[in-house]
């Protein structure tokens, strides 16, 4: 039995439908880029030609960092962050936190990009970190993540937008549950083919019911991420600490160690890395030294998730002696339920806890949510076939549906063809140009079936061309990648080829069905 009465159910249909349609296309863009962003790092690795899967801190970095520290302003030694990027390079960021004109605290300092194999300096930039030239190796992955997180809009508007979309998705999931009378029973119902609309409805409801639990989880955690930074932290700081951000940061991150500015030699980073690797069972992904060269220095080492631990761990070491001080919770100074909850949100949203396996599952979950959004939209529009305005929106469904995917492939073209230019600029340009072309094509080709076929063919050809283009523009071929141990490059190439071939095959199958239906219709007439 349904838990709601008829009038309530009518309002829920309105909520479910309107939330899905008015912002459904934007929601689809966020969900699709989110599904792909699960593999953003792998895509970044693929685009840069990859690297042997060597450990990030395989080289002795300590002495090299000492040399680099000589070459930056002393105030930038306040905090030093070291990590390995998707191109296999080591990034070192000497910086401090200063207030900018708007009153926002921002990072300022020097960023080094070092060759992962020999620690040679590849690039050195100095200034406000938000204004440094984009780290070009990450242009493609940064773009995908930026569209997903901010819809490419500036802070905080992009976060507000994606946050509202997250809440909308949440409302669609909940209203869907309330509306559907026999969710469990109907999980196995076969889509009815008696009418086109019924068939579509059944498929939408099936996909919706199956993706319900994770639709909820992804929407909830997504809305959390968007609003936590843009509204949550400032509001809570305002109320709980009377606006005292410093006190809030101290409470959340733990009070800083007592200040001691006396100069002191930093402990051997190699020893610390060896120690933390032994404790955690795997090497760290990044490390931070605060108060470099001072007696109150602290080394924090970050580890990714492991088989037993869903979320990453931080270990603290005394900076001058290298002595182990214990694990550090994500928030607060001691392990707590709050820290566990915050820790869980990451893996639940990103699916990054179980290597490639969990990422593949999360990608599929994201794609399932895309399917639910698009089929829902399509149904809503088909039920309003007599309205011109809805039909105009209806035309946008395949344009945005296929267009976003095609434009993302276009962004890949931009990355590879940017030779000499700034890849991050070209990635964006190529995305926009492809999107405009898709919109033009969508309105130029009147026949809906033909339009969809054109889009599928474009997507298929685009995906097939990307690996070729990657190799033609100087990326490693399969033999070379294999020799260098860059398996991710081959893996992503293969996925592109398979997905591209599948898109092309769907075109030829579609055309074959159309041909077989045509004579039947003619003979019936």
């Amino acid at each position: 039995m349904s838990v709601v009465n008829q009038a309530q159910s009518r309002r829920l249909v309105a909520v479910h439908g309107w939330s899905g349609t008015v912002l459904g296309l934007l929601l689809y863009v966020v969900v699709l880029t989110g599904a792909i962003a699960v593999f953003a790092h792998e895509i970044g690795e693929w685009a840069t030609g990859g690297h042997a899967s060597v450990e990030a801190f395989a080289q002795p970095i300590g002495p090299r960092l000492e040399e680099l520290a000589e070459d930056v302003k002393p105030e930038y030694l306040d905090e030093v962050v070291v990590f390995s990027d998707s191109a296999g390079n080591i990034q070192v960021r000497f910086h401090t936190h200063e207030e900018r004109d708007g009153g926002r605290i921002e990072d300022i300092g020097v960023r080094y990009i070092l060759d992962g194999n020999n620690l040679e300096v590849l690039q050195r930039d100095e200034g406000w970190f938000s204004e440094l030239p984009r780290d070009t190796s990450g242009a493609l992955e940064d773009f995908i993540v930026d569209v997903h997180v901010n819809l490419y809009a500036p802070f905080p508007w992009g976060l507000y937008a994606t946050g509202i979309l997250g809440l909308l998705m949440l409302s669609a999931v909940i209203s869907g549950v309330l509306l559907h009378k026999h969710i469990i029973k109907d999980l196995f119902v076969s889509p009815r083919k008696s009418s086109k609309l019924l068939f579509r409805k059944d498929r939408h409801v099936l996909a919706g019911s199956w993706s319900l639990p994770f639709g909820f989880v992804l929407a909830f955690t997504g809305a959390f991420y968007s609003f936590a930074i843009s509204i949550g932290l400032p509001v809570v700081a305002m109320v709980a600490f009377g606006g005292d951000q410093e006190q809030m940061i101290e409470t959340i991150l733990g009070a800083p160690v007592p200040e001691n500015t006396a100069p002191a030699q930093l402990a051997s980073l190699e020893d610390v890395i060896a120690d933390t690797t032994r404790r955690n069972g795997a090497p760290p992904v990044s490390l931070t030294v605060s108060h470099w060269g001072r007696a109150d220095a602290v080394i924090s080492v970050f580890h990714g998730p492991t088989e037993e631990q869903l979320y990453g761990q931080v270990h603290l070491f005394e900076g001058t002696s290298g002595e182990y001080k214990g694990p550090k919770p994500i928030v607060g100074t001691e392990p707590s339920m709050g820290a566990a909850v915050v820790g869980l949100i990451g893996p639940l949203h990103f699916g990054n806890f179980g290597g490639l396996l969990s990422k593949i599952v999360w990608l599929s979950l994201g794609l399932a949510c895309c399917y639910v959004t698009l089929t829902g939209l399509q149904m809503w529009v088909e039920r309003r076939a007599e309205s011109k305005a809805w039909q105009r929106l209806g035309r946008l469904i395949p344009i945005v549906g296929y267009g976003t995917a095609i434009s993302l492939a276009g962004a890949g073209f931009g990355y590879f063809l940017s030779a000499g230019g700034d890849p991050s600029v070209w990635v964006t340009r190529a995305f926009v140009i492809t999107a405009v072309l898709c919109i033009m094509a969508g309105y130029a080709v009147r026949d809906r079936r033909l339009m969809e076929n054109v889009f599928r063919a474009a997507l298929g050809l685009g995906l097939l061309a990307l690996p070729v283009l990657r190799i033609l523009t100087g990326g490693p071929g399969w033999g070379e990648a294999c020799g260098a141990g860059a398996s991710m490059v081959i893996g992503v190439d293969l996925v592109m080829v398979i997905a591209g071939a599948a898109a092309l095959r769907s075109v030829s199958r579609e055309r074959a069905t159309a041909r077989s239906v045509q004579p039947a219709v003619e003979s019936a007439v």
Partner: protein
Amino acid sequence: MAFFLTATAVSCLGLALLLRFNKKRQRVYFKGRPQRGSHTLTLGGWLLVLIPGVALLFLGQWSAFLSWFGGLTVIGWLVAVKKPTAEQSP
């Protein structure tokens, strides 16, 4: 990985049972044949689907549990959404 694979395999077995003996599906896929299945079979199917998840939680295999749960919802959807062929549909 081994935990995930085992759990998913067992659950898929349960899914297969539930799919085969679902009344509404039988009307489509086994048209004209006598309806088969019972409450016991349905219950057994659900137990097979869900027990691996409980087991993973019990064993503290959080990572495998999440992958299993996510994977199961995707597999279930992909199987259930299958288009009946022209002859099967009413």
